[in-house]
């Protein structure tokens, strides 16, 4: 079974935006930094308020790993797939999947853009594809 995120609490706007095909994050009102995972305070500067904004959706692959086996049948049937850490233009780093790209073509530093994969009624997962592949 596909594991789902907990869409409650401070992360609710993140998942709600993803369902609409948008990547949104809270930004600290004091230092301006992107806060990820979403919180309603800033763990970087201890600021106590944030404002949600839409992100550009552009980023770069910080690191990646091609997964070749998985105990969960939902994932096992899809191997090999590429799990990656992507650093957004806004500074936050997401754990995600790289899609629309052969695993052997993924590189650290590669430019990517966000896309979304619907996995349930409530959840669309932000995934990333090579920037060049964007129509």
């Amino acid at each position, binding site marked *: 079974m596909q594991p789902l*995120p907990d869409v409650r609490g401070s992360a609710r706007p993140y998942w709600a935006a993803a369902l609409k095909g948008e990547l949104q994050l809270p930004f600290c009102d004091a230092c301006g930094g992107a806060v*990820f*995972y979403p919180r309603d305070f800033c763990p970087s500067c201890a600021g106590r308020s944030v404002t949600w904004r839409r992100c550009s959706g552009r980023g770069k692959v910080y690191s*990646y790993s091609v997964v070749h086996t998985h105990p969960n049948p939902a994932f096992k049937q*899809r191997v090999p797939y590429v*799990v990656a850490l992507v650093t957004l233009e806004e500074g936050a780093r*997401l754990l995600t*999947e790289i899609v629309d790209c052969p695993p052997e073509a993924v590189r*650290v530093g590669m430019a990517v853009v966000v896309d979304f994969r619907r996995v349930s009624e409530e959840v669309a997962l932000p995934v990333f594809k090579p920037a060049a592949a964007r129509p």
Partner: protein
Amino acid sequence: MKRGATSIVGAAESAIGIVPDRSALELMGDAALGALDDAGLSVKDVDGLFAQTPYLWHPSISLGEHLGIAPRFTGSTNMGGASFVGFIQHAALAIEAGLCEVALIAYGSNQRSDGGRLMTGSEHLSFEAPYGTIYPATSYALMAQRHMAQYGTTSEQLAEVAVAARRWAQLNPKAMERGPLSVEDVLASRMISSPLHKLDCCLVTDGGGAVVLTSAARARDLRKPAVPVLGAATAHQHRQILQMPDLTVTAAVRSGERAFAMAGLKPADIDVVQIYDAFTINVILSLEDLGFCGKGEGGLFVAGQRIAPGAALPVNTSGGGLSYCHPGMLGIFLLIEAVRQLRREAGERQVQGVETALVHGIGGVHSAHCTAILGRQ
């Protein structure tokens, strides 16, 4: 916490490897009794109790019940596999403060006989689990890939760590994997989460381990040579890999710096090193962050079997988690091996002239780091 104010006076494993007919608690208890026997003490001497295992909700409380110990001081802080090195600091502080005198630190697990599952309770990593990471292997794979991209570290260099561990294990009769192993064998093993192959990953075994700590004064009257705690420190930063600020730098920088400062020593003063090798990349990152080589130089440092028997720096002399045993958490076994090396009890794998040992525990996904520096009287 003062340098040398407390000492390790007993250390033992339970049966390790494949032990289907013992529960996790029984393995923990067996190791605890073994460590007390080793020290020449009984459960009736123990008044400080520290335990951790994913099998029990209340590890130190269950161990107290199991062995008939009603301690004056107790702790089950969960620092993952680093917990046991961390407990050295907790126990030393409690002993120095007069809150207890004889502290027992123990672990037990039958992960192997339970089918290999790593029990992590009900915790759900909401921003990671939906993407199909293998926990914790993919997190370490991401660190390895970043280190390769940033510093040119190679799969061959990662494999050198596994081969060195196997060569140590060949000298350890208790080690689970003692067959021949080459760099080519590691590279030819199944890819799990690239760039980590199956043989870049630790074993899955059963087993328990325990050590006994007491004051330097009490230690003098006991059976075996005492192993003084010269320094100990703990650090953590992130819990999950997506929050690790720089995948090539771990909190070992901070725990190592503080442990060395307390001990009044530097990396060049250390004779034998025990690092939590859940994956080959751990050893490379930790050697850099603890100051045994520069940042980015870890791959070159381990190349040419320079951490193997007879080489420049003896690392993981038991065979480590890669070849000796790994029942879910390794930290306690690193301490046991350091004690044996310092007491000159390590048989064929004994490193000559050992006066100091560094033990480095790692918990989570390079999340928690606990460093202890041990010596001889």
